[in-house]
C-alpha cells in the first residue's frame, strides 16, 4: 500500500500539462451569451448590419442578456461574434447602436459608459459618469437612462442621459464631455428618460408624477452649449409610463417635423416637437385603441397601435400628422390564435418592415406577416407565411427581432431572431430554421453526470426465454463476425492501435443506436436543468444536446408560473442493470403565489418520462409531490432502491417513489436518520438536528422532530452547508515515513458550514465570517475558524473531501510582514492525539465521546487570485490523489495539486522520512502554474459550479464547469498510471519477441547437434 502511494506520489510529482494536440479532443468549450433581456427595448435583441471597408456587409444580432453580457451573434451561423462580460455588480441597463459603434450603459443609474466597436467588440471608451453611490435605482432599471446620437451626417457625438436628470454630450472618439446639463431641481418629480436629437435642438422627455398618472415633460436644449431653450409640461395623462410614449421622426424625410406620441385613455395623442413647444396636442382620429407599441422603427416614423378588438394597425408619421397606413387582416383577438408580437426591422437599404408573429391553434404553427410600407408603389405589401416552430421543444416565443431583404420587387425575405421562454434563440429565414442557440444553458441550476451503459446491453434482452434452436441460430449469427474479430484482434495485437486516453471519444455515427459508453468511461450524459423550465441531456463527448424536455406546469398552466430546479438525483445507474434514471426536484412558483414541489422523473439516456405519463414529443409532466414549498430533499439508498426523501414546511417526510416497498424500507432505516436543517430568523440562525420516528402520524407520513440545536453567534448567517462527497475512501490512514499511521478522521456525520454577516445587516468592518466543521448528528463543533470579512461581506469558498478541508478567503488586513491578499487554508483531521491512535471514526456511533478526539493539522498559503468556485477531483475508487480544481476570476479552470496544499509540509528542509512521504518544504505562496490551467486559452466565463465525476479509469476524473459557459475536460491527478503510455513502442516489443522466437527455432537443432558431438568426441 505504502509503496503504491509512493509510486502515485512519484507520478504526481512529474508535472502534467495539457498538450496542444489534446485541445479540443479531450475537452470542449461552449461559449454562451445568456438569455436575452426582452422586457426593455434598450436591451432586447436587435439586428445590426455591419459595414466593412470593402463595402461588404454582414449582420449580427445584438443583445444584452440576463447573464449581464452584451453580445453580438452572427446571423448567418449563430456563433458569437463578440461578447463583453460585465461584472456581477455592474448591471447592464441598455445599449444603443450606431453605424459602427455600440454604446452601453451599466451600473446604478447608468454610472458606467462604454463604447464598443460593433465589428470587433473592442472596448473603445470607458467612462464613469457618476459615483456608484450617487446612482439612483429605478424600476425598471432602464428608466432614467438613455443614449442618443447627434443628427449630423458624420462624427456624431453621443448624448447620454443618466440618473434621470443629467445629460452629457460626449465626444465619440475621446469620450471627453463637451458639456453637461443637470436638471436644476433634482428633487422635483420629473424623471427624464428619453433623448431626441435634431440638428438644432436636443429634446429631453420626462414624466412628472401627478395624481394617478404621469404628465409628459419636455425640455429642449441647444446642442452646442446645453442651454435650456424651453422646459415645461405637455398637458397629458399617461398611465403606463414610458412604454407608451416615444418620439417619431423619419430619417427618409428629414423635413417632416418630429412628433412625440403617447397613449392616453384609448386615444393616440401626438405633439409636434419644436424648440418652443408651441403646438397643441393632436389626436389620431378613428377607432379607439387598446395600446400602442414602439416596434423599434420610431426613427422611421412607424409604430403599431392595437385597436379595441385586438387588430394591429401600422401608423406612420406624415407631414400632415399621424396616419394609419395598414391594418393587419385577421389580427383581431380570436380564440383560434394567440395574441400577436409586433417587431420592426430594416433591410440593407434602410427600408422599414414590420413583422407580426402569432401562433395559430388550428394549424399548430407559427405564422408571420411581414409588412413593407415602401413596396407596391408605396401602398404597402404584406408577405405572409408559416414556420414550423416546435413549441413542445422551445416553449413560447417571447420576443422577435426582424431583418428583411427585398431581392425582387414583390418578394420579401424576412429573417426572424426569436427568443423563447426556455431561453432558446433561433434564427428563422422565412420558414427555414437557420440555427438554434440554447442560451438557457447559461443558467444551469443543477447538473449531474450520468454513466452510460455498455454497448451490448441492448442486444438480447429475452435470453432467458428463448428456445434451444433459437439460441443456436442466434449464436451462429453472432459467430459470423468472428473472422473479422480475429483479424482485428491480430491487427490490434501487432500494431498496438488501442484506444488511447487522448483519442476523441467518438460518438456513434448511427443516431438510432442507443447511447453507449467508450472504453474508458469518459463519455457520460450531463443532465442539466435550467430555471427556464427545461431539462437537457448533454453528450459529454462533444457538448451536443442529446435530448431536451420542457416542463409542463400542471394545474398552474391555467395561471402561469415558473419551475425552478432545486436538486437532481440519479436514482438508477447502469450498475442497477437497466437504463439510468434521474429525478429532478423542483419548486413550481405559480403566478398566483402558490408554491408546490414537483418531481420530474426521466430516463437519462433518452429524456423519456420514466413515469410514462407524458408522450415523448410533448411537455414533460411532473408529479406534484408536496403541495407546498420544499425544505430539503435527499437521496436515500434503501433496500428497495434509491428513494428521494422530501421534507416539507411541517417537517413531514414525503417519499418518492411512494410505493409500499419503499415505505417499509424507509420505516426500517428511519430511526437511524440524522438530518441537520437550517432554522431560525435571520440574525439568529441555527442549525437544528432532526430525527425521524419509525411510526407514522395519522396523516400516514413520518414527521421529523428536532433533537439538538446549534445557535451561531448573532450576526452570523448560514451561507452554505456542505458535506463530503460520497466517493469511496481507499485508505483509512496516512502512512508516515517512519511507518506509523495517522488514521484519517472519517466521521460520516461531518458537515461543513460557512457563515457570515446576513446580507440585510449594515456593512461593518468588524463583521467576521466563519468556517465550521461539526458533527451533523449531534451538533458538536469539531473545527472552527474565524475569518476576516471584506468590508462586511464574506466570500469564503470551502470544500471537504475525505478528512481534508480546504477554504479560500480574502484577507484585507495588513500587519507586519503580511500583505493583504487571497489565502487558502488546508486543514486535515486525524483520529486521536497522534500517530497510531486508532479510533475507528468511520463507523463510530455519534454517541461516542471519541468523535471529538481529533488532531488538526492546518496550514495557510497565499493564493494567487480570487476564485469563483472550488471542488475536489473524484475518482471511482479514491486511490488517485485528490487535486483541487478552481474556477478563478480570470475565467480559467485551474487545478492545484494536493502536494502543494498538504498541511503537513515541513517548515524546514525535509528530513529523509519526510522526503519519503514526498513532502516538500513549506512555501507560503502556492505557485500559479500556467501548465495546470485546464481550460488553456478558453475564457470560461462566470463559472458557477464545477462538477467532477469518476471515469471508469481510476486515474481519471471528469470535470464539467457551468456558469455562463460550459466547459468539459478530464484530469488525471496522478497521471494515467492505469493505461499504457502512448509512447510505448508496441511494434518494437512484438518484433523483439518474434526475433527471439525465430532465434530459438534456428539455434535449437544446432545446440542439440553440438551436444551430441560432445558426448561422442570428448
Amino acid at each position, binding site marked *: 500500500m505504502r509503496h503504491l502511494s509512493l509510486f502515485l506520489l512519484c507520478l504526481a510529482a512529474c508535472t502534467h500539462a495539457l498538450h496542444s494536440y489534446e485541445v479540443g479532443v479531450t475537452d470542449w468549450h461552449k461559449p454562451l451569451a445568456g438569455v436575452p433581456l426582452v422586457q426593455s427595448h434598450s436591451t432586447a435583441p436587435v439586428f445590426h448590419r455591419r459595414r466593412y471597408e470593402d463595402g461588404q456587409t454582414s449582420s449580427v444580432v445584438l443583445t444584452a442578456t440576463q447573464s449581464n453580457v452584451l453580445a453580438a451573434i452572427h446571423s448567418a451561423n449563430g456563433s458569437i461574434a463578440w461578447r463583453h462580460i460585465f461584472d456581477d455588480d455592474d448591471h447592464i441597463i441598455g445599449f444603443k447602436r450606431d453605424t459602427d459603434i455600440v454604446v452601453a450603459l451599466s451600473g446604478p443609474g447608468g454610472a458606467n459608459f462604454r463604447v464598443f466597436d460593433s465589428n470587433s467588440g473592442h472596448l473603445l471608451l470607458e467612462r464613469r459618469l457618476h459615483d456608484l453611490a450617487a446612482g439612483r435605482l429605478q424600476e425598471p432599471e432602464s428608466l432614467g437612462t438613455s443614449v442618443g446620437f447627434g443628427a449630423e451626417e458624420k462624427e456624431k457625438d453621443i448624448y447620454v442621459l443618466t440618473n434621470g436628470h443629467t445629460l452629457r454630450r460626449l465626444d465619440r472618439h475621446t469620450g471627453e464631455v463637451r458639456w453637461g446639463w443637470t436638471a436644476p431641481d433634482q428633487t422635483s418629480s420629473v424623471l427624464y428618460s428619453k433623448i431626441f436629437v435634431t440638428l438644432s435642438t436636443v429634446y429631453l422627455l420626462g414624466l412628472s408624477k401627478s395624481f394617478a398618472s404621469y404628465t409628459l415633460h419636455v425640455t429642449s436644449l441647444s446642442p452646442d452649449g446645453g442651454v435650456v431653450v424651453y422646459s415645461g409640461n405637455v398637458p397629458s395623462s399617461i398611465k403606463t409610463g414610458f412604454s407608451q410614449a416615444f418620439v417619431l421622426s423619419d430619417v427618409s424625410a428629414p423635413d417632416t417635423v418630429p412628433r412625440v406620441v403617447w397613449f392616453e385613455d384609448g386615444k393616440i395623442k401626438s405633439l409636434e416637437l419644436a424648440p418652443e413647444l408651441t403646438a397643441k396636442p393632436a389626436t389620431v382620429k378613428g377607432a379607439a385603441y387598446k395600446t400602442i407599441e414602439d416596434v423599434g422603427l420610431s426613427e422611421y416614423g412607424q409604430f403599431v397601435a392595437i385597436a379595441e378588438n385586438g387588430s394591429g394597425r401600422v401608423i406612420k408619421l406624415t407631414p400632415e400628422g399621424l396616419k394609419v397606413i395598414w391594418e393587419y387582416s385577421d389580427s383581431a383577438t380570436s380564440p383560434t390564435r394567440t395574441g400577436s408580437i409586433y417587431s420592426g426591422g430594416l433591410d440593407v437599404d434602410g427600408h422599414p418592415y414590420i413583422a407580426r408573429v402569432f401562433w395559430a391553434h388550428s394549424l399548430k404553427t407559427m405564422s408571420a406577416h411581414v409588412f413593407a410600407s415602401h413596396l407596391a408603389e408605396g401602398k404597402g405589401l404584406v408577405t405572409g407565411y408559416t414556420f414550423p416552430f416546435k413549441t413542445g421543444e422551445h416553449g413560447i416565443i417571447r420576443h422577435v427581432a426582424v431583418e428583411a431583404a427585398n431581392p425582387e420587387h414583390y418578394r420579401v425575405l424576412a429573417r426572424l431572431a426569436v427568443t423563447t421562454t426556455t431561453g432558446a434563440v433561433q434564427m428563422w429565414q422565412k420558414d427555414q430554421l437557420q440555427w438554434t442557440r440554447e442560451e438557457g444553458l447559461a443558467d444551469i441550476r443543477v447538473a449531474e453526470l450520468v454513466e452510460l451503459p455498455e454497448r451490448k446491453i441492448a442486444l438480447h434482452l429475452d435470453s432467458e426465454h428463448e428456445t434451444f434452436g433459437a439460441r443456436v441460430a442466434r449464436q451462429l449469427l453472432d459467430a459470423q463476425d468472428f473472422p473479422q474479430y480475429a483479424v482485428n484482434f491480430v491487427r490490434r495485437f501487432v500494431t498496438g492501435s488501442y484506444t488511447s486516453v487522448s483519442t476523441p471519444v467518438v460518438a456513434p455515427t448511427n443516431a438510432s443506436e442507443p447511447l453507449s459508453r467508450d472504453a474508458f468511461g469518459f463519455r457520460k450524459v450531463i443532465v442539466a436543468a435550467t430555471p427556464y423550465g427545461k431539462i437537457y441531456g448533454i453528450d459529454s463527448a462533444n457538448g451536443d444536446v442529446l435530448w431536451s424536455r420542457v416542463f409542463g406546469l400542471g394545474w398552474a398552466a391555467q395561471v402561469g408560473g415558473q419551475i425552478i430546479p432545486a436538486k437532481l438525483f440519479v436514482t438508477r445507474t447502469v450498475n442497477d442493470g437497466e437504463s439510468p434514471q434521474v429525478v429532478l426536484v423542483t419548486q413550481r412558483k405559480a403566478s398566483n403565489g402558490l408554491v408546490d414541489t414537483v418531481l420530474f422523473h426521466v430516463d437519462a439516456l433518452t429524456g423519456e418520462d420514466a413515469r410514462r405519463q407524458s408522450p415523448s414529443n410533448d411537455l414533460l409532466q411532473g408529479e406534484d409531490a408536496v403541495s407546498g414549498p420544499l425544505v430539503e430533499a435527499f437521496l436515500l439508498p434503501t433496500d428497495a432502491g434509491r428513494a428521494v426523501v422530501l421534507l416539507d414546511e411541517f417537517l413531514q417526510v414525503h417519499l418518492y417513489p411512494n410505493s409500499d416497498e419503499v415505505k417499509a424500507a424507509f420505516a426500517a432505516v428511519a430511526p437511524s436518520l440524522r438530518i441537520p436543517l437550517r432554522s431560525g430568523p435571520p440574525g439568529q440562525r441555527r442549525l437544528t438536528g432532526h430525527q425521524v420516528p419509525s411510526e407514522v402520524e395519522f396523516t400516514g407520513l413520518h414527521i421529523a422532530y428536532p433533537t439538538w440545536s446549534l445557535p451561531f453567534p448573532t450576526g452570523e448567517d448560514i451561507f452554505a452547508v456542505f458535506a463530503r462527497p460520497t466517493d469511496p475512501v481507499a485508505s*483509512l490512514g496516512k502512512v508516515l515515513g517512519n*511507518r506509523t499511521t495517522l488514521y484519517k478522521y472519517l466521521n460520516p456525520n461531518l458537515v461543513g458550514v460557512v457563515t457570515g454577516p446576513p446580507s440585510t445587516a449594515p456593512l461593518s468592518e468588524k463583521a467576521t465570517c466563519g468556517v465550521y466543521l461539526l458533527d451533523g448528528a449531534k451538533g458538536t463543533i469539531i473545527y472552527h475558524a474565524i475569518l476576516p470579512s471584506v468590508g462586511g461581506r464574506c466570500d469564503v469558498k470551502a470544500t471537504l473531501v475525505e478528512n481534508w478541508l480546504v477554504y479560500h478567503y480574502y484577507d484585507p488586513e495588513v500587519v507586519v510582514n503580511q500583505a493583504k491578499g487571497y489565502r487558502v487554508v488546508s486543514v486535515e483531521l486525524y483520529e486521536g492525539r497522534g500517530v*497510531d491512535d486508532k479510533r475507528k471514526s468511520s463507523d463510530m456511533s455519534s454517541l461516542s465521546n471519541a468523535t471529538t478526539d481529533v488532531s488538526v493539522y492546518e496550514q495557510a498559503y497565499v493564493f494567487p487570485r480570487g476564485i469563483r468556485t472550488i471542488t475536489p477531483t473524484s475518482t471511482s475508487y479514491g486511490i488517485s490523489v485528490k487535486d483541487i480544481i478552481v474556477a478563478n476570476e480570470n475565467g480559467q479552470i485551474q487545478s492545484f495539486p494536493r502536494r502543494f496544499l498538504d498541511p503537513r509540509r515541513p517548515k524546514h528542509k525535509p528530513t529523509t522520512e519526510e522526503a519519503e512521504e514526498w513532502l516538500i518544504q513549506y512555501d507560503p505562496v502556492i505557485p500559479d502554474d500556467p501548465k495546470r490551467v485546464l481550460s488553456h486559452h478558453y475564457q470560461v466565463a462566470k463559472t458557477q459550479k464545477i462538477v467532477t465525476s469518476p471515469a471508469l479509469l481510476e486515474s481519471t476524473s471528469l470535470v464539467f464547469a457551468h456558469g455562463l459557459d460550459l466547459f468539459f475536460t478530464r484530469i488525471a491527478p496522478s497521471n494515467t498510471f492505469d493505461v499504457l503510455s502512448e509512447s510505448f513502442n508496441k511494434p518494437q516489443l512484438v518484433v523483439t519477441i518474434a526475433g527471439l522466437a525465430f532465434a530459438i527455432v534456428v539455434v535449437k537443432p544446432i545446440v542439440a547437434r553440438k551436444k551430441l558431438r560432445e558426448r561422442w568426441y570428448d
Partner: protein
Amino acid sequence: MSTSTEVSKWRHLPPPPGFASTVSFSKSSGKAVAAATASTASYEELKSKRAWDLAFSPAKSLPMQAFMLYMSGGGVQIFSMGIVFMLLSSPFKNLAAINTAFAPFAPASAPPKSLTTLPLQKIAYLLCNLLTLALGLWKCRSMGLLPTGTGDWLAFETRGQPPEILLV
C-alpha cells in the same frame, strides 16, 4: 545419495599411492600401533578442529557480508535484494544441511550423520548462522521491508457500516 556410498567415500577408499594403510600397520608392531593410535588421535583432533572451523565459518564471513551490504546501499534494487536474499536464505540452507556438513568431521566412534554428533560445534554453527540471519533481517528492516509499523497493515483494516445515516 545413499549413505553407504557416502561413507565409502572416506572409509573404504584405497590409500593414495605411496601411502601405507593404517590397517596394515596395526598388525605389524606395537610401536607402529602406538604410532598409529597417536596418528588416529591427532587425526581426530584435526577433525574436531576442522569442525570448529566450520562452525565459526558463517561468523567469519559476516564482516565481508556487512561490507557488501554497505556497498550495495539502502535502496531496493537488484544488487541489494540479491545480497539480502542470500543472507536470508543461506542460514536456512546451512542448517538444513548441518548433519551432512559436519559428517566428514565426525569422530570415528560416533555415527557421522547423527544430530548428536559434535553437539557443541553444531550449536556454535547454529548461532553463527543466526547471526547471518540477523544481519539479513537488520538489512531488511533498514530497507523498510519488514512489516513492523501499523502502516504496513493499514490496507488490511476494515470498517463497518456507520450506525447513523446523515442526510445533508
